[in-house]
């Protein structure tokens, strides 16, 4: 008992000291960026490559360019284990220091959204989180580029139509949605329901309880019975490799199974072995090492031994997605520096930078990302941009692009976003009205 009191006392004293200790570190000509990582826990399989990608891109910017316009970025990770409780701790810990909060889980984003509007800390939830937060008028502090789950669902329907040979061919077809039985998994349902009505296809739901992620046997029995023409997998973690394996076991044509972008890990597909060839997943970043930006990371970070990633893992899909997320952060810092004329920016400036973020083709080329991602533009009202995604196909060893980049059905998604944002704000009661002015450029 005494030991525990002593330890607690020591640790708590240290906590108080910590605030003082860290302050001077971020004083001059550095920008502090804390990222929620999950290198432990049941989702670490995805968390490790994502975290490595994020860290390596920032290290590369620091090593190659000496930071963003000469300002080094201090990158730190706060470990969450993909647990909402720990994510909230991380938020409380970093809110006074970091220039942007990077929650890396839908639960963490939902819990942070109300706080961030009071603490005036921008949230960058890249293609996850609350879809309604794409409404910049009601959620000035939340950013969800390059697209939302609702956009993803509409891309899936377009992809299905393209495979069948036209939107009119959708009539009478069956789309099955395998989804995690949690808020994240149920996200695409409203959009898919609307589109099913509009185009006359049938939507079948196959929920997977979080406890049964690796036990989908009975679910696939119903899939065999229903014989859907396509399957869309809104899954996460151990659920994805299991779905791929089950599809193979049940002789479901693997190229008719399309995962959301979070179901596109290399390990998700690899689990199916040779027969997983043809498994598809939506994507908004390219995989592979054949980009100048990845080469620079290899040269300046990995080969110098400053990364925890083995060389052959660089360029995997989720690694590159981490790189993409860090690119958004760095470009937003750059934009904020340009807007304010300051070198060391504050979270308020960062919000302005994110809101005026405009990474066009030319800029992508400059930063060595031509063909790596589609251009991203965020405006004052539209905090997502609803950008293009493409369908990636697993060729047995790596992800390749299948077909063109597909524009989401913005006219379907946007009204839903605005209606939901209004609903959220009304229910919250006393939601702060947007006072931040829009930039002239956006």
């Amino acid at each position, binding site marked *: *008992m*005494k*030991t*525990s009191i002593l*330890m*607690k006392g*020591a*640790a*708590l004293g*240290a*906590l*108080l*000291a*910590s*605030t003082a*200790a*860290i302050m001077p570190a971020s004083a001059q000509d550095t920008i502090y960026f804390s990222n929620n*990582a999950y*290198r*432990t826990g049941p989702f670490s399989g995805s968390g490790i490559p994502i*975290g490595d990608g994020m860290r390596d891109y920032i290290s590369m910017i620091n090593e190659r360019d000496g930071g963003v316009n000469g300002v080094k970025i201090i990158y*730190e*990770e*706060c*470990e969450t*284990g993909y647990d*909402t*409780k720990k994510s*909230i*701790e991380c938020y*409380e*810990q970093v809110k006074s220091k970091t220039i942007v909060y990077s929650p890396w889980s*839908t*639960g963490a984003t*939902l*819990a942070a959204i*109300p*706080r961030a*509007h*009071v603490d005036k800390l921008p949230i960058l939830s890249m293609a996850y989180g*609350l*879809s*309604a937060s794409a409404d910049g008028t009601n959620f000035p502090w939340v950013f969800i580029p390059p697209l939302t789950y609702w956009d993803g669902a509409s891309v899936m329907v377009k992809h299905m139509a393209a495979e069948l040979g036209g939107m009119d061919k959708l009539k009478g077809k069956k789309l099955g949605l395998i989804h995690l*039985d*949690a*808020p994240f998994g*149920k*996200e695409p349902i*409203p959009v898919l329901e609307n589109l099913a009505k509009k185009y006359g296809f049938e939507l079948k739901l196959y929920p997977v*309880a*979080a*406890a049964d992620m690796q036990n989908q046997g009975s679910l696939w029995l119903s899939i065999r019975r229903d014989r859907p023409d396509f399957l869309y997998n809104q899954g996460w973690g151990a659920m994805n490799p299991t779905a791929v394996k089950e599809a193979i076991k049940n002789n479901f044509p693997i190229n008719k199974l399309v995962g959301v972008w979070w179901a596109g890990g290399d390990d998700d597909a690899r689990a199916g072995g040779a027969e997983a060839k043809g498994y598809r997943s939506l994507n908004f970043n390219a995989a592979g090492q054949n980009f100048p930006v990845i080469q620079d990371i290899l040269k300046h970070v990995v080969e110098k031994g400053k990364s925890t990633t083995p060389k052959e893992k660089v360029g995997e899909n989720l690694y590159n997605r981490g790189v993409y997320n860090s690119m958004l952060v760095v470009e937003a810092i750059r934009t904020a520096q340009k807007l304010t004329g300051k070198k060391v920016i504050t979270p308020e400036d960062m919000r302005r930078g994110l809101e005026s973020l405009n990474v066009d083709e030319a800029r992508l080329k400059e930063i060595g990302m031509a063909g790596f991602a589609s251009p991203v533009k965020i405006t004052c009202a539209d905090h997502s941009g609803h950008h293009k995604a493409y369908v990636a196909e697993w060729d047995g060893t790596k992800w390749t692009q299948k077909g063109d980049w597909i524009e989401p059905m913005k006219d379907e998604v946007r009204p839903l976003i605005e209606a*939901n944002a209004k*609903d*959220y704000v009304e*229910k*919250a*009661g*006393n939601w702060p009205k947007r006072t931040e002015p829009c930039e002239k450029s956006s």
Partner: protein
Amino acid sequence: MLYREAGQYKSTYAADMAVFPLREDRIGIAVILGIALVAVPFLGSDFFIASVMIPFLIFSLAAIGLNILTGYTGLISLGTAAFMGVGAYACYKLTTFFPNVNIIVLILVSGLFSAGIGVLFGLPSLRIKGFYLAVATLAAQFFLQWAFVRVPWLFNYNASGAIEVPQRTLFDIPVTGASATPETRYFVCLGLVVVLTWFASNLVHGKLGRSWMAVRDMDIAAELMGIKLLNAKLGAFAVSSYFAGVAGAMMIFLWYGGGEAADVFSIRLSFNILFMVIIGGLGSLIGSFFGAAFLSVLPTALKFGLPALGVPLTGATAEHVTFMLVGALIIFFLIVEPHGLARLWQIGKQKLRTWPFPY
């Protein structure tokens, strides 16, 4: 020398029966309350209050709830998190229906819904005991968690499927919602926990508590002595679930501030609270606080405290070290004292009484 009853004469039955018969104990409680009321909110940083103290108070309350059931009545439950969830969802529905009623009243009332559900799932306890009962309460955990996801009415048909905590005030000061300061939320938590602990203390020292303990020690003997098992066991389930429900409502409204509640009230939380009760000490209220401190405060303090002390630990490494240290400490304490931290505390006090002349 400093801590002994010599010279403290009791002249009434009430004084003899007091929960804290020693003057030193009463002073100790007053000091602890003073620290909690004054020192913590005025000296602690926002992070300390919001991420250490508030979770500690809420887990303590949940652990007291489970301790009433498992420690005092001897009924093992693995459904604590689900009963907490019932409280949270009940509070959310209540504040939707009655937006003008004070949120603290609603938090207290939402525990009643949890108590009702708890009694329902406690019915099997009349026929089964031990591990079999644990399995029956596991059913509550799975069923209720399923319902939290599948019944959209519970989360007001929100597209995100999450509980969105609205702003509610007490004397015009925001208590819930994002504008509520950590200090305000802390004071509300502290008030609720102190009042409910006092209530629990009176219950376990009273007739009901004695009947629970009789049932725990041997239920057939208790029955022969005239204790109605039905009342005692279901009463324990009701009170325990009430505490859990209030803790759950506090968790979402005063700590998390909204979010994916179904995910929060998972079996992991149930186990965590069971471990708090076991490590803290079965059948002890102060043990519930020790257990909560051990499993909630210690990991946070290690994870953020060690790096702050200058130990070069970041991110995942800090997490791994925390896991290892907490795991080792659990084993250490359970070897040193299998009856939990509360028993160690008691031994410590006993030794203090005879100190410095233990002969």
